[in-house]
């Protein structure tokens, strides 16, 4: 049977020369060395934590790869090293960083591969501002061609500029109208969950307006999107995301410290999973156990997508171009 005529489009992002692939591979090695030097200079300890664990992340938005071992039972590939690293901090590690693989089911596209590399770090005594400065400095070091001035904008301001709406105060109806006006075929979507509408607007209308070649730092998220960030005095989530153009590079948090907040969050997400008919994931009881004995030391943590930074460093348009073997050929 003949190939469809539009096969040229399907090759987009994959028609990469052998030389370009090897160049990306060498650049990856440089970035890894640069990142280690960066954290070394700042007194961070490099750590390794298991990518395979007996518990997982409860986030309803993440689909975890589940495996099974005849002796141990269910095991999960990590979606992020957050909980294990927090356990190390609780055990007295001090400031730590890690370069590790994370795995997320069903995430595949221009900026996504189900297996990807994260640089994750926690600065003890850091607040959000200090972490933003450090994260931008790291990105600038890894991708020096970027404009060196990052723009910091609140979540609210970013929505106001792009859409003229207030994502924190406006009623759901107003957000729904904006979605229908700015997102193709949004009227076909249920749009019954406020955060889902906000995510839709963020990915389709707000982030696409961010300038390419420069960093945009979005701060002060709605409390419903706090995850494990603490809330600031204005009741907003003390977290940030760093974008280059519409591509999200990093996600940072002034971390919640009390065990109660973690238990609460795990329960909320587990309930969401159940409501959506998603499988239960055993929660990290060891993290909760450690938090029961004492709060997490004051710290701020950030996860940076190394593959995406590498895309910037080599000018790639598809994540496949910077992976030795993208998932189709892995």
């Amino acid at each position, binding site marked *: 049977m003949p190939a469809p005529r539009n096969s040229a489009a399907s090759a987009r992002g994959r028609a990469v020369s052998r030389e370009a692939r090897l160049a990306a591979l060498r650049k990856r090695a440089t970035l890894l060395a640069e990142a280690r030097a960066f954290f070394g200079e700042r007194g961070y300890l490099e750590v390794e934590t298991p990518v395979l664990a007996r518990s997982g992340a409860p986030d309803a938005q993440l689909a975890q790869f589940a495996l099974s071992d005849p002796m141990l039972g269910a095991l999960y590939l990590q979606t992020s090293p957050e909980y294990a690293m927090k356990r190390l901090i609780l055990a007295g590690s001090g400031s730590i960083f890690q370069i590790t693989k994370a795995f997320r089911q069903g995430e595949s596209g221009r900026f996504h591969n189900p297996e990807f590399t994260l640089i994750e770090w926690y600065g003890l005594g850091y607040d959000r501002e200090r972490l933003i400065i450090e994260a931008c400095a790291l990105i600038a070091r890894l991708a020096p061609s970027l404009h060196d001035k990052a723009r910091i904008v609140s979540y609210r301001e970013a929505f106001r500029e792009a859409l003229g709406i207030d994502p924190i105060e406006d009623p759901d109806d107003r957000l729904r109208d904006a979605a229908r006006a700015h997102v193709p075929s949004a009227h076909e979507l249920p749009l019954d969950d406020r955060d*889902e509408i906000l995510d839709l607007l963020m990915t389709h209308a707000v982030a696409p307006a961010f300038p390419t070649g420069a960093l945009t730092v979005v701060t002060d998220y709605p409390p419903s999107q706090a995850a494990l960030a603490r809330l600031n005095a204005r009741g907003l989530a003390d977290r940030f995301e760093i974008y280059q153009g519409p591509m999200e590079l990093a996600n940072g948090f002034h971390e919640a410290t009390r065990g109660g907040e973690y238990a609460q969050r795990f329960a909320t997400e587990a309930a969401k999973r159940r409501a959506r008919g998603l499988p239960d994931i055993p929660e990290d009881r060891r993290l909760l156990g450690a938090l029961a004995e004492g709060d997490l030391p004051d710290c701020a943590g950030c996860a940076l997508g190394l593959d995406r930074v590498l895309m910037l460093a080599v000018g790639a348009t598809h994540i496949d171009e910077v992976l030795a073997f993208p998932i189709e050929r892995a």
Partner: protein
Amino acid sequence: MTTYSTNEFKNGLKIMLDADPCAIIENEFVKPGKGQAFNRVKIRNLKTGRVVERTFKSGDTVEGADVVDVEMQYLYSDGDFWYFMSPETYEQLGADKTAVGEAAKWLKEQALCLVTLWNGVPLSVAAPVHVVLKVTDTDPGVRGDTSGGGGKPATLETGAVVRVPLFINIGDTLKINTETGEYIARAKE
């Protein structure tokens, strides 16, 4: 009927949308690290050729369309239908005017075409990219002028009119690009 989850979306996948068969021509997965994932999809309606953008919540499912591309040989036309035969099964099918569309003016008996079938019925026909056709009418050739500059219209045996260099004569056979409708070269018999 097959259904596809957005996880299975890829370029070329044929799905049903608003009761029409469509092909995915671009699929972008977007997701805030901590939020809901969506698939932003560009879709070509295979009946109208029109391209629309749609947004799906990741994990949603859509019905697949029974659409296949098969290579078939053009046989003849009775004015209402254009008849094609599978060189493998010898099965014959008639494609109507809408399905044949622009391809009609390039079709010569025995040409191998790409016929897109929906539920077994021709939906569209793509003529071969290059065809060799005889000139049936054009102004007399200008001998020695091989510059190709200027040019003149020439009618081909299928009825198509293309712009050709001045030196072309009635009875010449020409190689034509059907995608651009442009003359490429004189063909040797």
